[in-house]
């Protein structure tokens, strides 16, 4: 609960730190029933006696930067998830320091010595196989007493479903699992993964993976050099505004480059070179692939932390961000927003197609033509588009004017129209005759005589029951569309 370390928190008083959800609360507030992650409004209702402070992540990151440096002095390759939470790969460090317990206590001692004591300054350390299990091992540990998990799978099985909430599963998914009688990750791991994939899509599969101890690997894949993005500045950036602008710019550039490759990163390395002093580098991690906003925020928080803590003396002359641990999830499918939504849509349409047959689910594409029925090239959904016979960009003189009828019969329908002196007077719709209030036309439609097509006249007839597009050929009238 690093949020509680803010200097403006009134000492000794109950404090609640929240943005839209609670990120920090003193013990007396927690005793009132408030939990981390609870919606702010609910928390305020439960603890009306608490002083409520709005979270400032940038400021928290700035204060947390010195803690990261302390950890980094002990173990290299620190990955920051957010202010208050870091992951470090410990395999090498365990050998160096002589054991997991020794290492964990060393980290606790160093960090506790740096931050001191007070609300939110408790140092919790957990060691397990994978970041997800380690994060919850730390959460279950006591201040000063690390929790070292020997059997990660058994440990995960005891965790409550709430542990999935942080960036993995939505409230509604957790609520659905509970409704199904699932309360722990062990229960969830007992389901067949295929069943979860069918019912809940990607989100369900991800939750099942975590519950089964298959956390995302922390080993970065090899990244092509050109995916990293770099900006150099002739005049060093010293002002926060200029740094913010650069952060947004460089984040957008990198994600746009990644998008064209159809990938998004779970980790990014942010590097800043100051005009004077040593190059600074930090790795940030996210359970979900970084979105534009998430990445911009992280780059901004990190650069701001360095600038405000004096970590980049003389200003920044070069920024470089490089993606790691690339994922193909979602990012390349901009139209659909995310991969799971696309999968659900495809599944729904496939089910409809299975019920109706392949010709029941169709897609249309514009093509040229003079009549409304000619102007759509139909193809079956999920099959290659049929070739368009007619160029939609050609001029098509004599095309039926817009607006187009919303209802177009697949073939012309014979219809009874009564004429009076060459002008339409009544039209039969079902069992009743409707007077024609007004009309436009005729527009001549010259058929391709060599293809056996006839000449015809088109009329737009307006009745009190709606407007119709009507074709008259060889003395007979046909319905070509309804302006519904």
């Amino acid at each position: 609960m690093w949020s509680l370390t803010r200097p403006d928190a009134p000492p000794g008083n109950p404090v609640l730190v929240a943005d839209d959800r609670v990120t920090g609360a003193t013990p007396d507030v927690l005793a009132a029933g408030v939990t981390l992650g609870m919606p702010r409004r609910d928390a305020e209702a439960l603890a009306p006696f608490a002083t409520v402070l709005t979270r400032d992540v940038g400021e928290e990151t700035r204060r947390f930067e010195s803690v990261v440096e302390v950890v980094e002095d002990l173990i290299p390759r620190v990955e920051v998830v957010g202010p208050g939470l870091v992951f470090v790969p410990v395999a090498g460090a365990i050998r160096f320091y002589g054991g997991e317990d020794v290492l964990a206590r060393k980290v606790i001692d160093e960090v506790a010595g740096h931050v001191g004591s007070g609300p939110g300054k408790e140092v919790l350390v957990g060691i397990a196989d994978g970041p997800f299990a380690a994060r919850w091992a730390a959460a279950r540990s006591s201040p000063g007493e690390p929790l070292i998990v020997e059997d990660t799978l058994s440990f995960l099985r005891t965790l409550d479903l709430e542990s999935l909430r942080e960036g993995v599963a939505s409230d509604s998914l957790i609520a659905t699992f509970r409704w199904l009688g699932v309360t722990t990750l062990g229960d969830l791991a007992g389901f067949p993964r295929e069943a979860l994939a069918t019912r809940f899509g990607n989100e369900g599969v991800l939750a099942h993976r975590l519950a089964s101890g298959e956390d995302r690997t922390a080993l970065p894949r090899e990244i092509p050099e050109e995916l990293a993005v770099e900006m150099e500045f002739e005049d060093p950036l010293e002002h926060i505004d200029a740094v913010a602008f650069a952060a947004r710019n460089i984040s957008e550039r990198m994600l746009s480059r990644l998008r064209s490759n159809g990938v998004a990163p779970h980790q990014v390395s942010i590097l800043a070179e100051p005009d004077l002093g040593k190059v600074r580098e930090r790795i940030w991690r996210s359970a979900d692939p970084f979105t534009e906003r998430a990445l911009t925020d992280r780059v901004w928080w990190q650069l701001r932390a360095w600038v405000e803590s004096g970590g980049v003396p003389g200003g920044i002359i070069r920024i470089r961000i490089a993606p790691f641990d690339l994922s193909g999830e979602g990012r390349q499918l901009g139209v659909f927003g995310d991969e799971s939504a696309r999968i659900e849509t495809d599944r729904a349409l496939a089910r409809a197609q299975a019920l109706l047959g392949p010709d029941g689910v169709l897609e249309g594409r514009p093509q040229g033509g003079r009549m409304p029925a000619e102007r759509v090239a139909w193809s079956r959904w999920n099959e290659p588009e049929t070739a368009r016979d007619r160029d939609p960009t050609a001029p098509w003189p004599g095309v039926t004017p817009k607006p187009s009828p919303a209802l177009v019969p697949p073939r012309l329908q014979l219809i009874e129209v009564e004429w009076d002196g060459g002008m339409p007077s009544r039209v039969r719709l079902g069992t009743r005759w409707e007077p024609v209030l007004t009309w436009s036309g005729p527009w001549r439609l010259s058929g391709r005589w060599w293809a056996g097509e006839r000449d015809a006249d088109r009329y737009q007839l307006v009745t009190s029951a709606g407007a119709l597009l009507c074709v008259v050929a060889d003395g007979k009238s046909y319905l070509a569309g309804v302006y519904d």
Partner: protein
Amino acid sequence: MGKPEVDLATPLLDQSREELSYLRLEPGRITELVGDTGSGLTRLGLSLLAAPSRAGPVVVVDIRGWISPEAAWETGVEAESLVIVRCNERPLWTRVTAALLEGVPAVFAEVPVGIKEQDLRRLAALARARKTMVAFRSMGSRLPSGVSHLRLRSLGVTWEGADRGHGKLKGRRLMLEASGRGAAGVTRRFEVEDEGKDTLRLVSDVVFDPSRRAAG
């Protein structure tokens, strides 16, 4: 005196007029379109899909096999996002629509005559649970009470541009009546202008009818 007009194009969210909210779909809520063929509701239903089609796929359930995608494109629906499902068999309609409501973000469905009330209620519950944006156009009687959040009834359509053989159909004015929970329990009438482009215009000619019975 000219009537003030409000564009209903993309900056819809910036508009504060209450009637504008009737002309967009909301997640998990059903908008019911009531009116005979020719009263202009197919085009209105298609235009409701225009905004969702910019974010993802949208589906039209067509029970007659007559709905034209060209009219949908003219109202602003993205061609790549539109899928037409043709279902002219009443026994299948409920199952097909349920499958679509479960996975597709926005659906405009014609409802055939004779669908059981309990099936419609189940579909409404499914749409609520899945937060699907839905417009139903009943081809028979109205939907059972409580199924739709908002009911838009077409009171009539007038066409402009055609004059006894001259000109051509240019635009239409659709008089609509909004009622139901989505209209806050009062019946409101308003007029929409459609010139065949991807912009509808709301004509500020609104009549409020007091609710005939109180909600309790």
